[in-house]
């Protein structure tokens, strides 16, 4: 679910081109945009406090066979949330699970991991290597 929440609508739709067609679904709730209050901890590790809200879109769908799918994704993209909910339902279907995992979830996860790794490498390039002044004086 985290992988689909992080992916954009375009990224998910792009992966679905290679995947088997998704079954029809009905919307049970949403998609609707709302807020989640983000909490932090005092001092980073103490009691909770309310930091501020973030926009979140949620959606719940049902497949013809009754399988339910839910999604809560950061942002306001209604179609992304609906697609994520539909995929959540389809991933519970044994006949679709393998193909969707291989064609959608894993490629997106790999792309997200690479983006995070690239950021980490850029950060690493700005890590300070200290010279000790004692050596420079001697």
């Amino acid at each position, binding site marked *: *679910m*985290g992988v689909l*929440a*992080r992916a954009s609508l375009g990224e998910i739709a792009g992966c679905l081109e290679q995947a088997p067609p998704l079954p029809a679904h009905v919307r049970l709730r949403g998609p*609707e*945009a*709302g*807020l*989640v*209050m*983000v*909490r*932090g*901890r*005092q*001092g*980073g*590790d*103490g*009691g*909770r*406090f*309310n*930091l*501020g*809200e*973030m*926009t*979140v879109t*949620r959606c*719940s769908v049902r497949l013809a066979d009754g399988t339910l799918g*839910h999604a*809560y*994704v*950061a*942002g*306001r993209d209604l179609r992304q949330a609906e697609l994520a909910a539909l995929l959540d339902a389809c991933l519970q279907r044994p006949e679709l699970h393998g193909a969707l995992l291989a064609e959608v979830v894993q490629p997106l996860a790999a792309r997200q991991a690479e983006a*995070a*790794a*690239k*950021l*980490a*490498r*850029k*950060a*690493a*390039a*700005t*890590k*300070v290597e*200290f010279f000790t002044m004692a050596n420079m004086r001697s």
Partner: protein
Amino acid sequence: MYVAVKGGERAIGNAHAWLDEARRGDPALAELDVAQVEQQLGLAVDRVMAEGSCYDRGLAALAVKQARGDLIEAAFLLRAYRTTLARFGASEPVETGAMRIQRRISATYKDLPGGQVLGPTFDYTHRLLDFALAAEREAVAPAPEGVADPAPMPRVTELLAREGLMRRESRSDAEPPDLTRDPLNFPVPRAAWLQALARGDEGFLLGLGYSTQRGYGNSHPFAGEIRMGEVTVEFTPPELGFAIELGEIVLTECQMVNQFAGSKSEPPQFTRGYGLVFGHGERKAMAMALVDRGLRAEELGEPVDAPAQSQEFVLYHCDNVEATGFVEHLKLPHYVDFQSELEKLRSLRQEAGQ
């Protein structure tokens, strides 16, 4: 007091039409795209998200464009928009210790696990106007990449706490107060003031934080650690009953390390002031941490005699949307009020003249 007056619809309509035209500027120039604001004025967007208390880069960028770059007006727009949305619930507390670090520095330890990571910073720039930015430029080369160290980056405060030199936070999972739902009743707990400071005005908190350094509430701070990067937000929907990941948000966290003389029950040790803000907002996070420590004076048995140590002073004045509302309401018609003042003044002068 002000009174309702009718009239002026035409003038208001025309004024807003002019506002639209002024916002657009010279039509010979390309119109600013919201995505351009989001990407290229990222720190303005971050500030609007922090003070608007709503994390959504697209909405904040739209607000910056609509407000013609007036960031307090933009925060106001974002605050107004958030009232139109239902709240699904509250997240699990974000784990800033597991932040995917873009920047992490400490002014208290040179060599610390994970090292000093500068990230995309203005520090060490010469603050000379770069006229190359005013000219057409070739594509910017991608930033160099190094070899990432997968080792965790423990918080500096944790290193001190392990030695018993840093006062530990009391970890509780009590439901925190929410100032957007419940009015402030002084004295308020620290959770309430941290929420207020996180959405407070950067300029106001900067001035107050500065005042604590200059002696109004002696706090002798060290920037123990500043870190900026992505954290994962987890949320437990009631229909699922387990936490799911909503996505990532960028946060800036500051841990100020301050002296504490100790008390009858506690040995001398360091205490912390804490700052946490949406987006990349280092100055704000540092100022917030200074003011947080100031507000802890009473809890730590210190004298409370400076503005930054007074809950009422800080919390009633740090919110720029509230402050703007009351300051700018002075623009509304006060004709009747003023008429009575005029009459009073005239009669006083008449009496004095007799």
